[in-house]
């Protein structure tokens, strides 16, 4: 299966490099939203719960843009048919697409998080960077798993752009709660407070449960 996953990832990265349909849109959305919050809240800087909430809601909504595009080439250019006729494990498509969405999220955050710090964050991140990276990676994994599952489901429908956020956002509420709770102390006004490790545990549990669930049901989503 490893070779199939590698081939699928490579193909998706080539398509993104040629079309620039996902990552630039996600990035532009994130930065535009931070700018809107900057002016809309009429505050020069944020900290704590509010900063964490703004960061995670923005990243989640940006991720929805990526979910919407994740399977479009497969649907519109016959990728599903070509894949389904090949003698490969169908779960490879789930693994590859989740890895690609995870990669897209990381690529967006490499620029969007520093932009958030510059535009909105009062104390800066400072020494809390390793903890923030841990939260980002665990939350991205959960978003990628659920986003891939819902992306595959939604792309089969005519109202893809509507269906995907309507299903994905409620399912991702636990990720936003856990990620925001874990991030808020790191962004506290007086500098980073004690890191709530248990929220990392919640994120890891969410990733594991939805990862297994998605792995189990993805094959059926590909059936007509």
């Amino acid at each position, binding site marked *: 299966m490893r*070779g*199939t996953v*590698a*081939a699928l990832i*490579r*193909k998706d990265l*080539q*398509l993104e490099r*040629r*079309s620039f349909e996902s990552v630039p849109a996600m990035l532009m959305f994130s930065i535009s939203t931070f700018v809107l919050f900057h002016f809309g809240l009429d505050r020069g800087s944020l900290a704590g719960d509010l900063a964490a909430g703004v960061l995670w809601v923005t990243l989640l909504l940006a991720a929805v843009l990526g979910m919407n595009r994740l399977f479009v*080439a497969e649907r519109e*250019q*016959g*990728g599903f*048919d*070509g*894949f*389904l*006729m*090949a*003698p*490969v494990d169908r779960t490879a498509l789930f693994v590859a697409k989740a890895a690609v969405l995870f990669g897209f999220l990381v690529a967006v955050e490499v620029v969007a998080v520093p932009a958030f710090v510059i535009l909105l964050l009062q104390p800066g991140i400072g020494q809390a960077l390793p903890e923030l990276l841990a939260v980002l990676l665990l939350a991205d994994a959960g978003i990628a798993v659920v986003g891939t599952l819902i992306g595959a489901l939604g792309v089969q429908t005519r109202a893809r752009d509507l269906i995907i956020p309507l299903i994905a956002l409620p399912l991702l509420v636990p990720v936003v709660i856990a990620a925001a709770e874990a991030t808020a102390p790191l962004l506290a006004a007086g500098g980073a407070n004690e890191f709530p490790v248990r929220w990392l545990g919640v994120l890891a549990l969410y990733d594991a449960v939805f990862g297994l669930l998605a792995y189990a049901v993805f094959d059926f989503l590909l*059936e*007509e």
Partner: protein
Amino acid sequence: MATAAPAGSAPAVALEGVGRAYGERVALRDVSFTLPAGATVAVFGANGAGKTTLLRVLAGLLRPHAGRAIVLGAELPRESYRARGRTGLLAHEPLLYRDLTVRENLRFHARLHGVDGGRVDALVEQVGLSARGDDPVRTLSRGMTQRAAICRAVLHAPELLLLDEPLANLDPGGAEAVAPLIGRGTGPARVLISHDAEQGLAEADWVLGLRGGRQAIWAPAAGVTLADVRGLYA
């Protein structure tokens, strides 16, 4: 005359009362035939007669809603995994990514099918696409895209070729170039959809005529006249 299947070999396709519906609309009803290994059936019928649905059922992309469908010895959909990688589909759509080059598309499919990358270059050269092989598919003419799609369909040397208007958009030179890959006597059994009655009959061992999703003709090609085929479109 029908090509005789090698003694003891299983038929390429065996359908018994196969039907398929899209919601309330029945696209295919009670279709039954057996296609020997290595033989060609030409499928004729007016638009909406069920030809493409039949092809997608045989490809394992649509489940039959009635009857029994066996492709290359695998009963669909229960054993469809056994037929995967052994059928080649040339559909209306080329099943190629428009932003990838011809070679990138074919290498991707070669990896999925476990085919050596060297075959990609050989096929690209054989169909006369060497000079455009590194261009994105979206920049190709329809005829060139069809050539690339044919390369994709035969890349893994399938035992059953499902061909929907394979010569559409091809100029005479293109048709000549792809003949050794998808033409008569190339090895695999073929299910060939065509609206060109003369050419279809010349290519076929058997003829399947569909009218309104029902099987109107199933006979050896030698026993079917042009008038019989044209009658399907009346």
